[in-house]
């Protein structure tokens, strides 16, 4: 085992930790905020399912980031992840809810710019489109689900207490599914840049457990996210549920369900194959932001209610954050790569030889 790899990987793990600390709030924030699920319960479920999602469902979206910019040295990957993590950390400290996907994409483009590599603009276009499309889709899905759930409750004339039990169960199940989808979808953000230089070997145990070298890398990333959730997400989880809009448990469930649907649409290879096989337009497999999905869903519910309960100040800050996050990550990465290469004499880019 090359220990320098582990050192460089630490920035990815730091990124994973910050993702856990921030994005866990998107999965269980509304459930904990409405006091329907205890934080400890939420943290354990989220940790387990994020790791499972990362290890067993995390391959699809990595390819997209790889085509955006193929960071091919460890020091380069280290700085790309570190720049993204620092950006998230800094933005979080200013109180802006940030998107990890945006930070990492900004960082990769920063690396591309520094190394003179051309950015694959068709891929970037696809990712950029999801930044606009994802919140809108989440808002639309949330509104639709809200109507459906309301109709169901009115038709069944369910007692408030029973409703409460079902909503609670729904929040836990959907939270677990969301955690799985978050792990599957966002592990590429954390570990994607280390895939190419991962020194691990495929691992099998008694022919029952088989993990590829990439799955081992993703397992590490998933564990870092879990540590982030357990150690640092409590405050964020507690506040996300109520900061933007005071919600009922039913609205909280709608938000989580809408988020799960959107993350599933953008991360399922099975769904993409199915749609392709039926000659239907498929959703691109790109790492979408759970923050954007959850904020979009909350805004959808808030607007459905006439926008009265929405905190427009926080909404504005979040949207501004979505614009500046990739730009800050790009600049931080570019400047840091300069120092890493010229001050610390690290190779941040290996030119690829073209076969003629």
């Amino acid at each position: 085992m090359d220990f320098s790899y582990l050192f460089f990987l630490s920035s990815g793990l730091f990124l994973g930790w910050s993702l856990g600390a921030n994005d866990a709030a998107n999965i269980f924030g509304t459930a904990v905020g409405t006091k329907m699920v205890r934080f400890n319960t939420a943290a354990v479920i989220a940790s387990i399912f994020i790791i499972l999602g990362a290890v067993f469902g995390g391959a699809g979206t990595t390819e997209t980031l790889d085509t955006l910019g193929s960071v091919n040295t460890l020091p380069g990957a280290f700085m790309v992840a570190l720049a993204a993590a620092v950006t998230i950390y800094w933005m979080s400290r200013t109180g802006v809810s940030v998107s990890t996907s945006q930070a990492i994409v900004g960082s990769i483009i920063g690396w591309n710019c520094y190394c003179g590599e051309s950015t694959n603009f068709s891929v970037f276009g696809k990712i950029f489109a999801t930044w606009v499309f994802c919140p809108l889709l989440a808002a639309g899905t949330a509104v639709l689900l809200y109507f459906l759930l309301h109709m169901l409750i009115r038709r069944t004339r369910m007692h408030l207490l029973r409703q409460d039990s079902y909503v609670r169960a729904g929040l836990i199940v959907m939270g677990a599914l969301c955690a799985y989808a978050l792990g599957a979808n966002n592990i590429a953000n954390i570990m994607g840049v280390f895939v190419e230089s991962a020194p691990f070997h495929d691992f099998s145990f008694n022919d029952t457990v088989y993990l590829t070298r990439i799955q081992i890398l993703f397992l590490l990333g998933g564990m870092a996210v879990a540590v982030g959730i357990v150690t640092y997400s409590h405050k964020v989880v507690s506040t996300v549920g109520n900061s933007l809009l005071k919600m009922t448990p039913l609205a909280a469930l709608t938000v989580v369900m809408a988020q799960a649907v959107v993350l599933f649409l953008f991360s399922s290879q099975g769904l993409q194959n199915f749609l392709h096989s039926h000659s239907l337009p498929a959703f691109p497999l790109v790492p979408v932001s759970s923050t954007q999905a959850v904020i979009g869903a909350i805004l959808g519910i808030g607007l459905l209610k006439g926008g009265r309960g929405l905190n427009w100040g926080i909404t504005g800050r979040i949207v501004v954050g979505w614009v500046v996050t990739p730009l800050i990550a790009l600049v931080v990465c570019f400047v840091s790569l300069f120092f890493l290469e010229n001050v610390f004499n690290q190779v941040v880019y290996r030119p690829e030889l073209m076969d003629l």
Partner: protein
Amino acid sequence: MFNVKISLFSHTKELEQKIDMLHDKIIEAAMVFKKAVDVYLKEKRSQDYRKLSKEIKTIEHDADVLRRDIENRLYSQNLIPDFRGNILELVENLDKVINEFDEVAHKFYIEQPAIPEKYHERFKELVGQVCECAENLAMASRTFFYDLSAVRDYSKKVYWLEHESDKTTASLKEGVFDSDMELAQKLQLNSFLTEVADIADLAENCIDQLLIYVIKRDI
């Protein structure tokens, strides 16, 4: 560190029944009170009145037991955590309506006010309005647990009945104080009229709260 506690579908059925029973108690109390006043006006403190007054006392006691049980279960089973305080307040206010029925019935039993016959019909009218008001409150509150949108229908009735009871009380008081009765008797009847009308006022306050809960629950 992690005490994972998932309490799903935990005996909510039993609690649902208890909340339903509390609503039943309000309707029961209203019906028995109406009958008791009728009996009192006819027979004053007769054996029949004594029985009916006792019946109201039993209803009040049962309602208290139900209220305590509901409150305990809501907290011990961690049910509707975001809304528990409001449910608790609602249950307590429903219980206050039943208490008021008991207090007035008992007051009749103890003080035995002499109500001149010419006021009997108006007095029955007032009691009828107040009891209907309480019954509609019970229906509104029961509906609140099943169908938020229907609460408004019953609340309109409660408001209307409370307003009518106010008018009846005012005209009765006016009649009492314009009469040749002793001042002590006038004041005693005034106090009775106020207490009977208070039942409708309590129901109205309860409905005010209920409508706010509907708005809160709807967001």
